[in-house]
């Protein structure tokens, strides 16, 4: 009913008998950065996996760009303009940096434009250009995260999902990654980011949702969430 480009309406999902998501509703509007916060095992990754059809929703609907996508296969969903930077990056370690970027554009066949997008990734991450022939598995953690983001960008998504982009990175790199996310957003890509690092995520987000054991317990603008008294200790279990 809104002008959301991606919305989850009353979505539930489970792994066998274990319910992972319980009736969650999320809206992501075009051009926004929306973050989904929560502690370990709150269901954050499951939310992203369900959007992409890697885990099946057993109730509710997922609408992307005006059409329902919850019954489609992952490649079909990706072809509509949605993709993800997965948790732990999961690059193709035996392939070169270049091949990883090219495979991100696997569904496109406009060679010249793919090349342009790859150049754009290199302007975002000059470090990757230096390592273009290197196997992805031999990159450092930070470089791998850059490549994982680059690989998602060459798919030219309308909405980019990111699963814990800060995980396992040194604080200085985390900041850099989030700055890049902001920049990608300013170039016109809608962002939906899942994070444990709430303060970092909220500092760049427009709005946020807080997930606790499979249910949305809070939703507000990023500014309000940052001031929310219970945010860190009650919902995220952080000691700050």
């Amino acid at each position, binding site marked *: 009913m809104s002008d959301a480009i991606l919305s989850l309406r009353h979505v539930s999902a489970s792994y066998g008998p274990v319910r992972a998501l319980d009736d969650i509703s999320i809206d992501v509007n075009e051009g926004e950065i929306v973050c989904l916060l929560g502690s370990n095992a709150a269901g954050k990754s499951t939310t992203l996996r369900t959007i992409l059809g890697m885990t099946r929703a057993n109730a509710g609907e997922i609408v992307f760009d005006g059409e329902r996508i919850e019954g489609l296969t992952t490649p079909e969903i990706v072809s509509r303009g949605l993709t993800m930077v997965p948790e732990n990056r999961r690059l193709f370690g035996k392939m070169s940096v270049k091949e990883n970027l090219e495979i*991100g554009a696997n569904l496109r066949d406009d060679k010249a434009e793919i090349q342009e997008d790859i150049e754009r990734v290199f302007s975002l991450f000059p470090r990757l250009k230096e390592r273009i022939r290197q196997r992805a598995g031999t990159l450092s953690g930070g470089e791998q995260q850059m490549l994982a983001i680059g690989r998602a960008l060459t798919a030219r998504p309308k909405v980019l999902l990111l699963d814990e982009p800060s995980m396992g990175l040194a604080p200085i790199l985390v900041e850099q990654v989030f700055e890049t996310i902001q920049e990608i957003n300013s170039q016109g890509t809608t962002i939906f980011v899942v994070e444990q690092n709430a303060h970092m995520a909220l500092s760049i987000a427009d709005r946020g949702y807080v997930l606790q054991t499979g249910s949305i317990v809070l939703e507000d603008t990023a500014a309000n969430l940052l001031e929310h008294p219970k945010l860190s200790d009650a919902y995220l279990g952080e000691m700050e």
Partner: protein
Amino acid sequence: MSAPAPAPAEQSSRRLRFERIPMRRIILIVLSVSIIYGVVAGSTATLRTGVFTAEDWQSLFINGLARGSVYALIAIGYTLVYGILFMINFAHGEVFMAGVYTAYFVAVAFAGNGFLNSNPLLSIAILLLVSMAVSVFIAVLLERLAYRPLRGAPRLVPLITAIGASFFLQYTFRGFYGANVRAYPTIEILQGKWTIFGIQMLKTQAIVIVAALFLWFLLYLFVARTKTGRSMRAVGEDREIASLMGINVDRTIVATFAIGGALAGAAGILYVFLFNQVIFTMGFLPGIKAFTAAVLGGIGSITGAAMGGLILGILEAVGPNLFLTGAEVPSPNQLQPVIAFGILVLVLIFLPGGFLGASEEKRA
């Protein structure tokens, strides 16, 4: 903090290790020493008798290279499927048999009306096409009917299914084509010898070696350069992320089986160039030897499969004569399978990853 502190612990652990491991270690050491001794002693004894001339060794070597080329092509089928599904397709030998045995009937028809020797190149091309098409068909059918429903099952299940499928196919083709050994019609232009770089070899051997090399090279380019090849590598590394890249995983797996089948079909025709006969059980030994070659080279690696095939072929052709003649073993060439499967056992004991394979622990 202080340097001498860890000494007693280290000593006791060293003693413990000495007491715990030896049996296995000692057996392995004795095994390898006796194998090395046997090989060296046998070889020197053989060379001292002078039964074989340098030319004999050359021709044995070429013979090994030729049969090794066939093993290599079949081995690629094992290695491709393993690389993407982590299963051993033990029915791959039957995929090989199905193609060349079907092409036999085409060859007989061509020989009957004289086409085979009036248009030999065209005939060979048609035989190749028929053999490859049938092998591809069987390989794809196998994937679709026998393996795909078991995609999520524990690894042992598709393995046992593969063995069952192997027998199913053998006896199905026995039903179709009968139980006899059948002689492939001879193609006249392939008879005779060439001298290449001063080495005499059968024309068929030269053709088999060159053709296998060419096909291997084509495959290498295909996997390295094409989109389908890239998809195959991606699915092998991480199936879920491959589908996140928009890759159709099922179609990629079918393509993998089809390519393995095509190479097996081509290998079948090369095989009859060398051995001239077909029978419904003909896939079994070459299949298992090619599997050995794939393991030897490092299963999952295409270059490894080619290397393993050639090494196995050469060892098989040269080995029995070289190692066993001097030890006065009667008719050593009958012991070729001993060499092949001896190698399989040794590789599994001493070098489970093969020459070029990724170490197994990553995937287990």
